[in-house]
């Protein structure tokens, strides 16, 4: 009865605190909207989003034509073509101004130089001529990058281009080799080489992914669970503040004078906050499922059983309320608890993978990110939503969260006991 009275009282106090409610519900919701919008572009992969490039074909021969055609038909690039060799400045300016991410210059006579070099190789092989081919001029394809683009992006573009060029080189080489062989062996027919890929790189389970069995890791799939966990942990500020207020006003001391109320008060308070956390978490998920698709973003995929998701919410809720209880016990003023609570949650969130996924963090940060309860909670959601993990897989993370809750509570109780003996 005392437990339910405290639960009821805490819920009344919480729901009547408009500023606290706004912090618990509106702030994480606003963060989800903002972060999904801001991070949508970086999260889209290159298949979804074509890279704008500009090509200057000063060659206007087979290499230039084939490469240009290949790039214009590529699903990776959105290519615009300039012709003539006097447009280099125009190309450079449009890339520097960010209109295009990459400028590609196929140098004049590139095809001619390539053919000369290939011909020399063939002659060397077929006729045994003693030639120093490495000293001959090479064809050039030059790249100009938008200065703001990342190193990994440059690598993607360069490797795509090299792949195209390698194919063209091979084709020209095989064609010329076939022609020379035909000259040497005029009576032999079918002297043609098939220009096709011999080794394929294919993605296994692609069909399953396409069927949304394993959802694509996108801005919604990262940010909604991430800022849900962040919002859950931000409850520590409201909780600690309410505890300190009750201590300052004397109601805590007054309740301590009523026998058999110690555990009902603690458990009633924690239960009330965990109840609010459940509402908060499902509200955030609803934003990902119903509201974000209306704005053109992907729908949040909630894989994993309903029970498992709720167990994860419960474990995160306990960890957050345990932390809030500890802060509310240790600190004496609202200012101290609010500053420490906010800063600690922001740091835990940054290192725990809320702002950017852990796998893109530096190795050192990755090694410490696993130490924070925010990370355990977020990884448990990711295990369920993205990897459709079994309950046994998320069990260790749930255990860590519950141990964190117990640890915080024990420290808070010891602190309480010491404060009492000091009075």
């Amino acid at each position, binding site marked *: *009865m005392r437990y339910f009275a405290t639960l009821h009282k805490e819920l009344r*106090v919480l729901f009547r605190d408009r500023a606290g409610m706004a912090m618990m519900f509106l702030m994480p919701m606003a963060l989800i909207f903002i972060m999904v919008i801001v991070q949508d572009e970086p999260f889209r992969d290159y298949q979804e989003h074509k890279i704008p490039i500009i090509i200057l074909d000063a060659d206007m021969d087979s290499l230039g034509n084939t490469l240009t055609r290949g790039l214009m038909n590529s699903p990776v690039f959105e290519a615009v073509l300039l012709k003539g060799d006097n447009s280099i400045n125009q190309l450079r300016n449009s890339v520097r101004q960010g209109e295009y991410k990459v400028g590609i210059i196929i140098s004049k006579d590139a095809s001619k130089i390539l053919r000369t070099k290939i011909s020399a190789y063939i002659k060397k092989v077929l006729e045994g001529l003693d030639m120093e081919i490495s000293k001959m001029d090479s064809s050039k394809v030059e790249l100009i990058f938008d200065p703001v683009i990342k190193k990994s992006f440059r690598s993607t573009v360069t490797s795509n281009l090299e792949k195209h060029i390698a194919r063209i080189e091979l084709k020209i080489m095989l064609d010329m080799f076939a022609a020379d062989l035909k000259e040497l062996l005029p009576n032999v027919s079918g002297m043609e080489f098939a220009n096709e890929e011999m080794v394929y790189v294919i993605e296994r389970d692609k069909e399953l992914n396409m069927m949304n069995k394993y959802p694509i890791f996108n801005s919604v799939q990262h940010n909604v669970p991430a800022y849900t966990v962040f919002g859950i942990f931000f409850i520590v500020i409201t909780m600690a503040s309410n505890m300190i207020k009750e201590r300052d006003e004397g109601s805590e001391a007054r309740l*301590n004078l009523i026998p058999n109320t110690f555990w009902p008060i603690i458990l009633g308070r924690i239960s009330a906050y965990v109840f609010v956390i459940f509402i908060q978490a499902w509200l955030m998920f609803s934003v990902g499922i119903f509201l974000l698709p209306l704005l053109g973003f992907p729908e949040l995929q909630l894989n994993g059983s309903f029970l498992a998701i709720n167990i994860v919410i419960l474990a995160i809720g306990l960890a957050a309320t345990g932390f809030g209880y500890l802060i509310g016990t240790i600190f004496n003023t609202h200012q101290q608890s609010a500053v420490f609570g906010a800063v600690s949650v922001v740091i835990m969130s940054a290192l725990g993978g809320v702002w950017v996924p852990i796998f893109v963090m530096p190795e050192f940060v990755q090694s410490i990110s696993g130490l924070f309860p925010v990370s355990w909670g977020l990884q448990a959601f990711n295990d369920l939503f993205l990897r459709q993990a079994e309950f046994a897989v998320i069990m260790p993370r749930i255990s860590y969260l519950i141990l964190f809750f117990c640890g915080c509570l024990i420290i808070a109780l010891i602190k309480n006991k010491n404060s*009492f003996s*000091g009075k």
Partner: protein
Amino acid sequence: MDNAVAVSVEDVVKVYKSSHQPALNGLSLRIDKGEIFGLLGPNGAGKTTTLSLISGMSELTSGSIKVFDTDVSFKMKGFLNKMGMVPQEIALFPSLSGLENLQYFASMYGLKKEESTDLINEYLEKFGLTNAKKNRLHTYSGGMKRRINLLAGILHKPSLLVLDEPTVGIDVQSKAVIIDFLLELNRNGTTILYTSHHLDEAQDFCSRISIIDEGTSIALGSPKDLIKEHHAEDLQDVFLKITGKRLRD
């Protein structure tokens, strides 16, 4: 221990960890059942410390305190069931209504809803708070809050009621209602331990008083006896004669 004794304070010393000076320095008191006992003294004399030791909120440095024959230092909190505490602060929940505050404290005292509802309504009626009972506490006047603060300490009908300055900062009407109500409780058998700086109020209200200063009792008796003993006009005169006019922190 004598069955007629409600509270016994024997040679109590209390030194806070943050201070070298004792807050209480060998204080001894005896409060009989059915008394209205006033604990008076200048600021920092040790009144609030005494109340917090009696209620078990603080630990004694030395000496002993018994409440209804239970030694409070043994951490047996059973005696608290017989005790009601009304702190000087408005120790309530401002975002709850007066009624919700009282219902919550009634539940925490272990009262069933059916037993507490009538009692709460009766008390609210008596204190003129029926019309405002559903308003949030933060909208109440100082006097209304203090009345609810008092009610929250007596819902379980304690045998000993400890009041720390229950009439501080309120108007004459609220004060009169509170004092009348306390007298009625006392007539019904509740022992009252009370601190105040309102010496005229204490003179009329208390059956016995102890004036304490620097952590020890320097005068004990009925107001009438103390006035006579110190050849004073009233209790305030007694107070100034024995504690002096030196300002205290």
